[in-house]
Every structure is written in C-alpha cells, then in structure tokens.
C-alpha cells in the first residue's frame, strides 16, 4: 500500500493490540489510524460502528482497561498494552449476554446501528451500578445517541436486566 500520510514517517510499524483477550498483530497500519479504524479495517471486528467521528454518539464504544471510551477518539497505537474489549468480546456468537437478550426482548433494537455501543455502555453501567434509577440510566447512557427508538424501550431493557440480576442474587 502507499503511504497515506504522504511521508516516510509513521507507517509500516507493526504493533500488538490486546483485544478480547487475544494479542492481535497490526501490520502496515498508518500510525494516524484510530482504534475504531484498526478494529474494523485491520482486525475485521466490524461490530463497533462509526457514526460521528468526534465522540458525540457513542456508537463506537469499547472498553479500554475497563473504561468505556469512544474508539473513534483513541489512536490505535496508543492503546498498546491495554486490554480492549469490543462488542465481539461480550458474549459468544449465538449466545447473547443478558443485556443483549434484554435489548431484543424489550424492543430496544430498530435499525441497530447504535446498539453495539449501547450494549457496551449498559454492561459498563450495570457493573458500576447494579440497580440504577431511571434518571441514572438516562444520564449514564446519554453519551449514546439512538435515532430510531426514542430511548423508551432501551430504558426498559436496562431495567429488565437489573431486576433479573437482583432476583438471581437474592437468596
């Protein structure tokens, strides 16, 4: 491939990312590429979506060392040595997590483009706050924009998971 930076600096430097528990080699990548681009185009992990390129919509949300981030705003090369979890790392294909299944059951999915980011954000929220109030759900998820649903069924899905997890914990 050509050198997209138009310079001899910064290209063709191989590095390793730790994604979903595996070391993944990134070769021939321009160092200016975002984590979102590298996940999708270099590593074939198409589950994370790009919709705004400036951290406003949350569609590209992943976990980096446990923190929820917009992967469009992270330089991939800067994420070396950190543990990255993407939507593909949440649950095996065909065996959805409780959050994923609740989104399907509650009608929280329409076009589905925002959904992977919202699944990541919801798992993160429920880890930190297992029984969020409705207002807490709204505030915590307000970095994820959905244009189809008006959010009502998503809030319902999150509440369903919180209730189900509590009943599992209760004796």
């Amino acid at each position, binding site marked *: 491939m050509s050198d997209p930076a138009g310079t001899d600096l910064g290209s063709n430097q191989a590095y390793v990312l730790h994604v979903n528990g595996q070391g993944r080699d990134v070769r021939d990548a321009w160092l200016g590429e975002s984590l979102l681009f590298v996940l999708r185009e270099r590593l074939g992990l198409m589950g994370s979506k790009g919709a705004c390129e400036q951290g406003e919509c949350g569609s590209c949300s992943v976990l980096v060392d446990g923190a929820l981030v917009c992967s469009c705003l992270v330089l991939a090369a800067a994420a070396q040595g950190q543990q990255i979890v993407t939507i593909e790392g949440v649950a095996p294909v065909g065996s959805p997590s409780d959050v994923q299944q609740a989104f399907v059951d509650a009608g929280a999915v329409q*076009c*589905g*483009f925002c959904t992977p980011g919202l699944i990541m954000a919801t798992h993160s929220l429920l880890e930190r706050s297992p029984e969020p109030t409705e207002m807490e759900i709204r505030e915590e998820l307000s970095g994820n924009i959905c244009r189809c649903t008006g959010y009502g069924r998503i809030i319902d899905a999150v509440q369903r998971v919180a209730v189900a997890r509590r009943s599992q914990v209760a004796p």
Partner: protein
Amino acid sequence: MAASATASRPDGVAKVQGTFAFSSDLTADGFLWGATLRSPHPHARITGIDVSGAWRIPGVEAVVTAADVPGKATYGLISSDQPVFASDVVRYVGEPVAAVAADHPDTCRRALAAIVVEYELLAPLVDPQRAVDGTHPSIHPDGNVVRHQRIVRGDQTIDGPVVVEGTYHLGMQDQAFLGLEAALAVPDSGGDGVELFVATQWLHEDQKQIAACLGFPAHKVRLTLGGVGGAFGAREDISLQVHTCLLALRTGRPVRMAYSREESFLGHVHRHPCTIWMRHHAELDGRIRRIEARFVFDGGAYASTSSAVLINAVTHAQGPYKCDNATVDGWAVRTNNPPCGAMRGFGVVQACFAHEGQMDRLAAAVGSDPVSIRLLNAMQTGDHLITGQVIQNVAPVARCIQETAALPLPDQPVGGHDANPLRLPGGSGLTADVGHVRRGIGWGVAIKNLMYSEAFDDYSTARVRLADGVAFVKFATSEVGQGFVTIAGQIARSVLGVDEVVLEPIDTTIGSAGSTSASRQTWMSGGAVDGACRLVRERLFERVGTAHGVDPLRLAIDGSDVVDTGGTLRVPVGLASAGVVIEQTFEHHHRPTEDLDEMGQGNCHTAFAFVAHRAVVDVDLELGLVKVVQIATAQDVGRALNPLSVVGQIEGGIAQGVGLAVMEEIIQEGGHVRNASFTDYLLPTFLDMPDVVISLIEEPDPMAPLGAKGVGEPPTISSTPAVVAAIRDALGKDLWRVPVRPADICL
C-alpha cells in the same frame, strides 16, 4: 395473528451482538476506497478541472469527473435534474464534482486535495421568496419554480366573523440516521455489469437511476440491500450509488464508499425549510368556515421530491378538521441552498405546525380551549378534504383527542419529587432556578396520507415458497429498522400455519416493493406477503382436498394444522406440504389515485391515518431553556400487528418531533451549512427525551389488506406543534418558528 404478535425481530440477536452486516461493514478482496470531491461554493461556474495532481499520488487508482459518466449525465427521483458530477455549474455547497478510488481513506483525502477546480463565483439565490417572485435569474435550465399548486374550493367570499392569521416558519431538519451512507460495488468481470450492496429505501428505483447513468440496461445493475442504519427519508434519493459503481467499473476492482458525518450532512436531502401564512375564518363558536394559506418550500438546488412534498402540504392544510371553503397557494422553489426532499412526515409536518398554531389562536379568539376547538371541528369518515376527496378510511379524530386527554398528566412537579437538577430545563449544565420555571401544556392533532399519491401506480411484490413445512419469503422491501422483517414472518406463520419462515435476501431479483416511505410498507408489502401466502395456501388446500376427498373451500389453517371446518380431518402443514414445493408471487396494488386539477381538486391520496399529541413542558423563562416532560398520544393504527414495534415507532417518531420543536436545525448562512456535525447539530439524547404515554386506537381499516395502517410518520407530525403550544402556554407569548430557540423565549 394474535398468537404471534409478540414475535421479536429476526435480525435482533445479530444486531445486539454486532454481527449484523450494515452497508458500511461490507468488504471484498482487493477493494479500494472511494471518495468524493464537493463544491465549496453555493453557486459558481466551473472554468477548469485539473485532476493530474491526484493521479500523481501513489495508491490512487481512479479519478473520475462528469466527462467519465458513460450514460445519462443526470438523475433524480421525480425529475432527472441533478448531475452525477457538476460539469459547468455548481449549485450548492457539497455538490459532487469528482471522485477518486485509492488504497486508503487518507490517500483518498490527499487525492481530493490535489484536484484543482477553478471556479468563477456567481450570485447565489438563497432567499426562496425571490424564486417565487421571479426576481433572480434562473439557476437551473428547469427554472426556479419546481412546482406551484393552487387549491380553490367552495365560496371564496367568506370572511369572518372570526378571523385569525399567522405566519409560521420551520427550519431545516436533518434525518440524522446513525448509519452513514455507505456502499460496496463489485464490477462484473469484463466490466459489462456491476453488483451494488447499498443502504437504500428503494432498491428498484436506485437500480433504474444508476443503470441509466452507467449506460446499462437495468438488469446489468444488480442491487442487494446492505444493512440499513436508519433512513427517515434521507435514503430515498441517490447519493453515492452512481459514484461507487463508476469507480468500480473504472478500476475493475470492488470499491467501498463511506461518507463521514460532515459529508452526510452535505450529501443527502433534508426536510424543507418552509414559510407558511394561514388565515382561518370561523363562526363565533369556532367552527371553521374557510381557510386561506400560502406555502413556500425551499427545495434547494435540485428537485428531489419537492413537488410531492408540496402537494402533501397544500392538501393537508386544513388538518384533521372539517372545512368546506379554501384558498391555498403553494410553491416549491429552487435555491442554492442544500437540496431538500423526503423526511418522515413529508410536507405534512410543515402544514401541521401552521394549522395547529391556528387552532390555538382560534380557540383563544372565541373563548374556547385547545381540546374543545379541536373536538368541535374534528373530521370523521365521510368528510372531505379541501381537494374534494372524501375520507373513506376509519377516521377516529375525536377519539384520538379524547383518549389522549384521558391519559394521566405527569405526577412529578417541576424538578421532580427528588429535586434532581437533571429534571430541570438545561439539565445539570445550566441549572435552572425552580422559581423561574413555568409548566405549560399544549396540543397537536394531525391527519397524514398513507402511500403514494397523484396517480402513481404504487405496488409491492412478494414471493412465497412452501416446501416441507417451511415458508421461504422473498421481497425487495427495504428493512431500515422499522421491523417489516418481523411482521413478514408473522404474516407467513399466521396465514400458512408454519413454524419456520426463512426470509430470503432483499435484492432486485424479484419485482419492486416500492419505497420504504410514506408509512406504506405494512400496508403494501404486508399486503403482498399476505397475498402470496394466501395463494400458496389455496394450492395447499387443493392438494389436501384432493388427497382426502374434501372440498378445499372447507379447509382452514388452525395453529399449524390444515383442518376441515365441516369434518374431522386434521393434517399438520408440515405433513401436507412434505415433498412438494408450492410457489406463488403476488403484487399488491392499492386503489388508483388521481392527479389534482388546476383548482387543486381530485382524489389524489390513497388513505389516511390520524393522531393526537399532548405535550407537557417546563420552561425557564430567564434562561430560555425547555425541558419536555411528557408526551401523551393516542394514535389511529388500524390494527397493531406487532404492538411492541408500534410503540417503538411512536416513541422514535416523537423523539424526532420533539427534536424539531426545540433543538434540531441545520444552520445555513448564504448557502453554507454551519453545523454539519453531531457536536453542533443537536439531537435528543436520553436526557432530552420525555416520558411517553400511549394509547393505541385499534379500529381495523376495511381498506387495508391486514386492517393495519402505517404508523411511522404520524408520531413525528403533531408532536412538534404540541410541544410549541406547551411552550406558548408556559410563556403566555406567541412563537412562530421551530425549532424554538432560547432567544425566542427569553428575549
């Protein structure tokens, strides 16, 4: 049907797991990236294009301009007035001038920067009124007026006794779907055809337009629906389709194109900004006698669907109210502003904002109230539009209003029982003082046409194959998120008694399904799937009847069995269809419609749906900030085939209506878009979205194939005026435009 009404989306698990392939996720071996060079000027003459600089950049494989378009130079949904690439004149900021294919998105970026286009600047036409007045030279060979339509009905001399009038303005709204424009084009070996995977609302219309521009017969351009990340009207027009195919054919390699968010704002049509003057003449008790109205729609540089948007607006000027006399003039005009076309509500959003503002003024003028004035004038089945068309559908306008009024008001005071600042206008950032916040309540009621109008033969095709107890269902209906794939399976299971339904790929190897727009697919493609299933069922009953010596007309489906309604025979569908293949194709056409005549008279629409909205808002009078607290709505849905999906359409549609009311606007200055990003174009978030309380009015419509009306657009239409009316109520002051800005409230 009832048994399967809780069916969940067949694509749901793939979407939550990130394995569903959106058009932007599609790739192919050896692919190249495509990118588009766009005009930086609203109006300019191109005096030279030098692409040699782009060719010198390593990794660039193709550079194309208008000179490389092998077929028709222009495209368009209704009139073919938009160039694939501008060659002589650019007419809006963002108009495509050239495209490149290269090995990396950043190589593309550099290649575009290396193309030199010389422009001679021309005076832009940015004021639509000047297009109406004819005071600006033509900016396009087709002229500056895309369409003018009058409606003249009844007694033109009626004047008063009560008269209310106002001028209303709506800003330009963006559809802002999340899944940006994206496509993958794969050229046939030899280059005499191309396969395109694209997110679109209407595969066959795209196919027709693309093939013409490429100089191919239609069958040489094969389209498959790439996963669609929302549409809302913005994917009804061509955007990157021809460019992607052209680059693939030119390079002989697969080409992926994917717009950025900024490019998406420039690269698709928007909701028309509109200025509307309306005057209502009424009896002393508030009964409407006559309406006068004048609409000016700014269509931007190219026609798109402006003429149809205009017709929707002028024919809905009366709203869902009885009215015998009318004088309406509407113009859709061309300017050097961004092109406008389809967005959810399609002209009726604009009309409704005006007629609902008028209803509140009328209520005030006669000493009535928002609910009573609307009930007094509510139309019903058998009433006519100002076009003379009789409403033959179920028309429960009064019931929509009454059931909305019966829904509970919010139980939370301003700021909530927990005094959480997030509940106040401005949220936690600009914390309002509870003492300066006032609550208001407002109403909006709407009528919306369903399906296409004006003599268009609007049809949908479906094919169903029953084999060994499994139904294979094929259609070209664009699934854009609305959930047609869910109800298609429900219909097949219910009509055929099968457990397993396989939905085949959505592509152009079957006849057209028409567009996923105009709230039409439940009615049209639902009707087509239902029709095909019924034909298959007839053949199945003939087989069972012959095999068992029973009159096929006595057979019926009960659960998953074929049963004899007059005897004891019961055969599982799986057994009855074992070892055979029964395949049938069905086209559903709705009843024909007519063109309007010069006086705007004629049966131009197919069917209608109705809805009412009540909004509760909290307004900070000093900061000018609004918190929409609750929307209550009762909607005429005919029959809810999948209630959860209907609720999703209602809540999602209301979010877009609330957005238009209080925050969403493409800001333009002199033809330049100033906020082409999600940082600057504000969209409702979880914190902006109010509670929604819903009552579904289910009166199955005898005209609808399944009794079900389309539900997608009505929620977006009257939610906007309801919110604005609530802000007016809180302020005690008139508001004439949307979105309502802080300065409109506090200055």
